[in-house]
């Protein structure tokens, strides 16, 4: 990195004069009408975390109800409504916008050394679309009676009572929010990279975000039209999905999963991007297999479009079709495995520091691997006959979605928190929260694999007494998991009030976001920064007095022989 000390001083003076992005201007409107990607990212972060809280409370209600085989406090109808809203809120309001919209908005321009995303107004617009979608879902919550499951399968969704049209319109609007975010990121990454940052010098988080954005742009419109047709079906009985008028309910499933399967990769790909950053930075070692990780993101994005049929093996498809879908499903595991092996190889002989983000990254590695491998059981046609619609499926996608995406999201928040708010948090309690999450998560969902293989169907409010022990284990785990996440939240809130000031570069990262102060100034970078290798840690050294990392060898150019990081032990 080119270092010019006097410029740095000048910039400090400038920072002090302008204030950082949090203090740059004040008042409610300065946030509500902001075009600053960092503030929009923070607003998204608060929004998605609130949604997660609501969805999480609903999840705990489900688990509490399932402590006994008979009714505890929810009627059958209420149970259906609770799991429907849990699913819909978690998918549409939390997981999909979590990493791309909250962390992505904050990080993409910073990692690119850009001043903002390409279309700041569109960015704000997509945030407000998210808010409108949220209002629709709150309406569903208040009206009550939405009991279709988050998938809105016809013909049940066209005949049931309840605010299905509200929910589908909410999801439709959230879809556009997602499209605009994705569109913004593609254009930003394509046109606003600084001089010297070629595609293969981009941080891997950007590759993941870019792949995600491609899915968002290509798949979400199909969900949009599907939900529009479903709304029309409910309001005018147009018959396209209704067998009464010769329509085909399975067509809805095809349309729905054509989006919603790629959407699974909208959820996991950015999480993988976070893990790539975390693994390398906290191991203080160049990422292993950069090119393969980058390509595998794109490969997952493309394969993701070809496997939607594996959700429908039992819905009635031609035998040949199911075989093709099954084979394609297996092939998705290849790029995923490439990533996992590369992360392992990154840690090998690295200087792994078990900081809170790294603990969460290791947690991710363990849980995601279980989630991914159990997916292969479901992708196998014969096994799926048995496991379809059982708790095995529930456990599988919670391992991927929650053990994968949520854990990576929390890890990412801990990693970039000092950058976002300029405060350090308590490491010990961060690590304790991770331990609770790990124990609680496995206690919740491992028993569900067992239940699933023994035939416990999903979405049932009542069950046979023989499953009670496993259900009690699972519910206990859920409360431990919830407790762990509350500790994590407490650690973050505590840091806001009591945390010591964060240095510019607390972990020793080499990507560009660590080059501006913590928190960043309003305009990030006045001119495009000089770009070096994003994972070369050779010129960085730990400075005790600042508790952070600085470049100690100005103008050092990385050479292959300098692959061992220079670490000053903290």
């Amino acid at each position, binding site marked *: 990195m080119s*270092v010019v000390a006097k410029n740095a001083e000048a910039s400090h003076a400038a920072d002090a004069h302008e204030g950082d992005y949090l203090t740059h201007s004040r008042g409610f409107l300065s946030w509500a009408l902001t075009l600053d990607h960092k503030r929009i990212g923070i607003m998204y972060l608060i929004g998605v975390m609130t949604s997660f809280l609501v969805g999480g409370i609903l999840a705990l209600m489900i688990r509490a109800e399932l402590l006994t085989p008979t009714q505890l406090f929810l009627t059958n109808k209420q149970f259906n409504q609770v799991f429907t809203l849990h699913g819909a809120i978690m998918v549409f309001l939390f997981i999909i916008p979590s990493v791309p919209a909250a962390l992505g908005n904050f990080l993409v321009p910073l990692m690119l050394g850009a001043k903002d995303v*390409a279309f700041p107004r569109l960015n704000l617009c997509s945030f407000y679309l998210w808010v409108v979608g949220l209002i629709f879902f709150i309406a569903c919550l208040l009206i009550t009676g939405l009991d279709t499951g988050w998938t809105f399968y016809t013909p049940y969704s066209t005949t049931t009572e309840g605010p299905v049209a509200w929910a589908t319109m909410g999801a439709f609007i959230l879809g556009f929010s997602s499209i605009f975010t994705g569109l913004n990121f593609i254009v930003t990454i394509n046109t606003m990279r600084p001089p010297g940052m070629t595609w293969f010098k981009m941080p891997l988080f950007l590759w993941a975000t870019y792949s995600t954005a491609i899915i968002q742009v290509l798949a979400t*419109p199909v969900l949009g039209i599907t939900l529009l*047709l479903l709304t029309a079906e409910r309001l*005018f009985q147009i018959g*396209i999905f209704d067998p009464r*008028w010769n329509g085909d309910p399975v067509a809805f499933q095809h349309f729905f999963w054509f989006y919603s399967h790629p959407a699974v990769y909208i959820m996991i790909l950015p999480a993988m991007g976070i893990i790539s950053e975390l693994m390398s930075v906290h191991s203080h070692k160049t990422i292993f297999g950069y090119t393969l990780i980058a390509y595998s993101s794109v490969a997952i994005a493309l394969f993701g479009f070809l496997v939607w049929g594996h959700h429908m093996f039992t819905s009635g498809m031609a035998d040949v079709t199911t075989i093709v879908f099954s084979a394609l499903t297996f092939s998705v595991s290849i790029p995923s495995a490439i990533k996992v092996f590369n992360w392992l190889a990154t840690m090998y002989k690295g200087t792994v520091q078990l900081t809170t983000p790294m603990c969460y990254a290791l947690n991710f590695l363990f849980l995601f691997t279980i989630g991914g491998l159990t997916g292969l059981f479901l992708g196998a046609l014969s096994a799926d006959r048995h496991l379809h619609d059982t708790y095995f499926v529930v456990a599988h996608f919670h391992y991927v979605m929650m053990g994968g995406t949520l854990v990576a999201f929390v890890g990412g928040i801990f990693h970039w928190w000092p950058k976002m708010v300029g405060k350090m948090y308590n490491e010990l309690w961060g690590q304790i929260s991770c331990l609770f999450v790990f124990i609680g998560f496995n206690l919740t969902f491992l028993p569900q694999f067992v239940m699933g293989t023994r035939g416990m169907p999903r979405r049932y409010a009542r069950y046979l007494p023989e499953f009670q022990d496993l259900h009690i284990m699972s519910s206990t785990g859920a409360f431990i998991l919830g407790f762990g996440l509350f500790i994590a939240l407490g650690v973050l809130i505590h840091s806001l009030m009591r945390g010591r000031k964060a240095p510019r570069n607390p972990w020793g990262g080499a990507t560009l976001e660590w080059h501006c102060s913590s928190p960043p*100034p309003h305009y990030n970078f006045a001119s495009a920064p000089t770009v070096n290798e994003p994972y070369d840690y050779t010129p960085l050294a730990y400075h005790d007095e600042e508790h952070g990392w600085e470049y100690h060898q100005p103008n050092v150019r990385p050479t292959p022989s300098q692959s061992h990081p220079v670490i000053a032990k903290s």
Partner: protein
Amino acid sequence: MSATEVLDAPHHAEHGEHHHNPFQAHHFDDPEQQYDAGKLGIWLFLVTEVLFFSGMFCAYAMYRSLHPEVWEFSSRFLNPTLGAFNTGVLLFSSLTMAWGVRCAQLRQAKGLAICLTLTLGCASIFLGVKAIEYSHKWDLGLLPASMYTIQSTVTEHHEGISKWLVIFSIIPALCLAGFVGWWVWAWSNNKKAIADIAGPFAITAACYFLGVLFGMFFESGGDKEAHGPMAAVAHATVAHDSHEAHDEHATVGGSAGGHGTANAADASVDKPGGAGLFFSIYYCMTGVHALHIIGGMVVLAWLLVRATKNHFNEEYFGPVDYVGLYWHLVDLIWIYLFPLLYLIT
């Protein structure tokens, strides 16, 4: 401190030396980068639009391949003359739009305003014709599945002006009155800048009624073949063309015997789950397309206002270009819709 690459004070960007153009956003390095970003953005948006429509094209393909006889039967209720007229109108509007982009690049504000007015006018004519088509069908009960009226039971003929047409025309009529009033007010108060905006808007609103007139003229011309006592000629063809129609005829022949050969075949498709499904898809596709036309008119109106303020020049014409691309796509989608819906037989 290595890290920072912030070379000058951050507010440099706001007053930087490369700020010739008042519309250059602060976060772009130069106008070229801004233009490229916008161009890529609009192309991606068009991709999403194509995929948005693709869902309906899929539904169309699926049901048409399952029930080809329904499609043959139902498309006879669409008037190809009106469809062809509207295709021509949209093609012409694409020409004026492209011409407008050229005007913007050449700093011809006046020419740009004229081109945009013509484009808006064509959009209005299109909607006027569409209003005639929709109201005509709704009178006949050619509606989506659950509301579809079986055509062999429709006996009475609708006379005079459809109530649906009146309902459709309320908003354009209000617009027309409002814009004409605005224009007169601006003119009488010597506010030329406002008159330059109000005038084209009034023309746009008036063009809707022009479209309605065209529509009425062509619709009455095509009346005899489109229906009558179920367009006997047309139906005979269905029975001969389609194998399935023959088979169906054999099964339902008894119950529909009184109507003769042709009508017996129709009975299998002239029902909510047959032709009704066709009209569901027809209204979804053309309706969503019409919404895109209306959306396009809003942005065209915004461009028109900016054109009268002379915002565009050879360095900054991005918005005109982007709206133009969008407009061509809307046009292109209609070019697919027209043969797929109107020209089946």
